[in-house]
């Protein structure tokens, strides 16, 4: 048995005439890992995930899921994976309990309805009809339906978009639990804190390709450094000067000011202030934060993740 839960090579998906949604994407997700796909709108995350789920035929490339392939072992694979689509409507007029029971009936083995309903904290809404649930409750129900077959591999496409902070944290706990049980999770998200908190490894996808891959810390360290210093000041600062400051690794324009990525804050800040003072430039804003995946994305692509 392969120790990879997901393996794909050279994945391509074209929509004629001129859209290339996925453009030669390689991915390896290990068993027991929580893997995150990050990227801006239209990067090709959903397309990739749906190909991996066997719901979309790729234009080219190879896919292996849990050591099996969709063209040969679809029936078997379906029972071993669980999914949430980025966007679905479940049957409007059925209750939470009825919907979970319906999905449970499709799987040869799995968890009880009450258990999964409890996992996503919808116990109180068990008898409520789907069309009377709030957006976040609907989303949690979708996750419950993904869990009900006790999947070895779970695909979650933006599972927490639109959830309140408490529900998000609850869902994180669910994912943590699954990981503890040795199951594999592939999720897409726009929330960098979520990816850093949940994922063992992440891939940053842009224009249908993986542009960076690694653990969140690795990526941050490798691509941006430890800290980001942003400041605004009237013109009169030269980029070359900033680059020469001790501890500064990279410099780029950020809005009206500058963003410096820095590995030793205690050296960089005093040097920056001294430099500005020597030039007679007054600071109008200064902030620092620990570098995040957002910074990784911005420095790789020059764009922000969510515009």
């Amino acid at each position, binding site marked *: 048995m392969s120790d990879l839960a997901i393996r794909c090579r050279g994945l391509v998906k074209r929509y004629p005439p001129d859209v290339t949604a996925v453009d030669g994407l390689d991915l390896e997700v290990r068993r027991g890992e929580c893997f995150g796909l990050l990227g801006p709108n239209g990067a090709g995350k959903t397309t990739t995930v749906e190909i991996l789920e066997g719901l979309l035929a790729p234009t080219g490339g190879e896919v292996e899921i849990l050591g099996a392939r969709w063209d040969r072992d679809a029936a078997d694979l379906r*029972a071993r994976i669980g999914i949430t*689509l980025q966007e679905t409507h479940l049957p409007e007029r059925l209750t939470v309990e009825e919907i979970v029971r319906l999905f449970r*009936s499709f799987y040869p083995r799995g968890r009880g309805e009450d258990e999964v309903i409890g996992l996503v904290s919808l116990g109180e809404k068990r008898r409520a009809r789907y069309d009377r649930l709030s957006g976040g409750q609907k989303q949690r129900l979708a996750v419950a339906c993904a869990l009900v077959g006790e999947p070895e591999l779970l695909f979650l496409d933006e599972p927490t978009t639109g959830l309140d902070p408490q529900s998000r944290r609850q869902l994180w706990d669910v994912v943590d639990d699954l990981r503890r049980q040795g199951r594999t999770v592939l999720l897409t998200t726009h929330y960098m804190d979520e990816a850093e908190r949940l994922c063992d490894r992440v891939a940053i996808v842009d224009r249908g390709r993986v542009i960076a891959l690694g653990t969140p810390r690795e990526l941050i360290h490798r691509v941006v450094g430890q800290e980001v210093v942003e400041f605004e000041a009237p013109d009169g600062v030269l980029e070359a000067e900033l680059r020469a400051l001790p501890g500064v690794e990279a410099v780029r324009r950020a809005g009206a000011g500058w963003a410096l990525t820095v590995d030793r804050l205690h050296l960089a800040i005093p040097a920056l202030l001294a430099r500005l003072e020597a030039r007679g430039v007054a600071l109008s804003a200064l902030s620092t934060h620990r570098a995040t995946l957002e910074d990784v994305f911005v420095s790789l692509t020059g764009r922000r993740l969510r515009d």
Partner: protein
Amino acid sequence: MTDRAPARRRAPRLLRRSALAQLVLARLRAFFREPSTVFWSFGFPILLTIALGIAFRARPPEPVRAAVLAGPGAERVRAALAADRGVVAEILPEAAARAALRTGRAAIVVVPGDPPTYRSDPTRPESRLARAAVDDLLQRAAGRPDAFSAADARVTEPGARYVDFLVPGLLGMNVMSAGMWGIGWVIVEDRQKKLLKRMVATPMRRSEWLLAFVLVRLVFLLIEVPVLVGFAMLAFEVPMRGSWLALAAMAVLGALAFSGLGLLVASRARNTQTVGGLINLVMMPMFIVSGVFFSSANFPPALQPIIRALPLTALNDALRAVMNEGAGLAALWPEAALLAGVAAASFALALRFFRWV
């Protein structure tokens, strides 16, 4: 997690864990929790039966309306005509008499004289009727003896009235539209909302998903047919001369044929507007030519082979034959074969092209 489940009443395990049972239950629940679909399926056909049954109920025959042109002898002619209670006669001056004939207030104008003159339009059935009645009365008044006096046996039998013709047609129409909308529309709605995609991502058997639709149709048939036919029998004394078994068998075949067509129109459509258009395109011609509201025999002979080949024609003819003429299954095999053929062909084609994701 608090699990209070054991305290609650639970469906038997067999039902809970059977995908087919759950799929059928899901469809039934969705249907009965939507008041408007319940109305269109069960209430509407009954309302239509009531409305049309009342509009076309048996009425005493219309009197013959005659005008007598004013002038010498007019009053004698009028009196001779008025002797029959089935004739209404009035004396009118020339201009008014012409107007009455033109507008249909009078079907005939009698110009008194020896012999009298009848002005009427022979292309109008009521004018021909009026001429015969008026002539008969005036001849007798002038002294013509009857060669013999025939005995009248009056017959107005259930089975020959419009409502008797109508009810099997409405039943056929209902089977058609329930199959087309209930399957075609619902499938595409599920596809458009990506519910179908979500279901296909589970190990659910696709055949069970489809079978659930057909089973649900049959369950509804079990309600629709007795409700509509029973209502028509009670309220309008519509006859049921054949067996319920024959009626049920034909209704089931019809439901299968139209389920297949519903599946076929839904097989590729991505959104409900498209499938709505397709459904109307398929159903509209059959509404008109397949003998729902009036007999398909009214269309020219050149069209008859096409009309005979339509599933709704076969279904309506068969239902009428069972209810009005008491036909048994043995006599209905051509219709049965046609419906079964449509069902088989449309299911096969639909599955060949069905867009699952």
